[in-house]
């Protein structure tokens, strides 16, 4: 028995968000705002994606006076699976963002 990737609507939502700009590194909070998912829902999904090597993570290059942020991007495998998964599921817009306002 193996640990399978859960294909929930929320996962499809997150993957669709990554597919909206495939080459861009994304911040957790930005994904949360765009998908409407709360941190407690979003991060387990990101962790599962990383566990299946579908997502790569990186720490932002630190600027003076600001701690580096964690960034995420789909791997090649991730992109392939994401395209298939998103095309299979009907992704509905999440509506209202979960959090508002981000400072840089």
């Amino acid at each position, binding site marked *: 028995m193996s640990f399978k990737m859960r294909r929930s609507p929320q996962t499809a939502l997150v993957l669709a968000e990554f597919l909206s700009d495939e080459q861009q590194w994304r911040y957790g909070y930005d994904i949360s705002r765009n998908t409407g998912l709360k*941190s407690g829902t979003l991060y387990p999904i990101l962790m599962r994606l990383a566990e299946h090597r579908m997502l790569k993570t990186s720490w932002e290059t630190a600027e003076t006076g600001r701690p580096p942020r964690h960034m995420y991007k789909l791997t090649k495998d991730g992109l392939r699976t994401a395209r298939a998964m998103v095309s299979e599921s009907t992704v509905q817009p999440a509506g209202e963002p979960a959090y508002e306002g981000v400072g840089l």
Partner: protein
Amino acid sequence: MSLLRIVALTISDEVVRWASPGCKEWAEGLERETRVIESDWAALRWAIGSTRVLLDRRATPLRSLDEVPNATYKLLDGALVRSVGFLLFPMMDGLLFLHWFFVARSTFERAGSAIGVLGSVIAVTYLLMEWRRLSLIERRRLKETWKDYIYNDVVACARFYKEQLKRCDKLWIYSSSYLCWMLGKALYDHYDHVDMFTWVLFSAWMLFILLVMLLVKRHKLRRIAEIDVLLAERGICETEL
């Protein structure tokens, strides 16, 4: 800095502090986001949501196949100790049921305690067999040739590790014992006055053991999935993701 912001940052810091080794990086990522969210309320909601990470207990993930030999040694070391340590639980339950068997006043009580003893016998037999199997592996481990084999052929080691993870995973054995214990206790109480305190304590203890076993099983499934992914990266397909 507002009070809300201070609370949000405190929560985030505590999440980082208490996160399991496998979730530490993610907890830090969440904590950094808390710092850049402008709205204090949003930051607080984000921080509260981040506590979800605390429920996820995972070991440091395997990042490459080269880490597998050490993980294998660690698993075998732990499994040998655990197989002896876990003997205590069914032995204690077995002794309790055995005591009830001898003080039983009715057929129901006697049958209930006998079923309970049977549950303990199943678990103890399995654990003793497991201990014997692991002891044999331990003896082989002491031979230098086996050590070389483990460190030089990481793919073979990964497969061996997977096999050990699967073999150690015998939840159905414990579940059978668990059912016997619960059924035994239920039968034992049938004709006697129901001692609620003992019953609640006993059920809580059984549920605790079952919960621990389920968590261990989840951890093992994760490890197996990690190894499958690492093997797949080397072009060896073990299972479909």
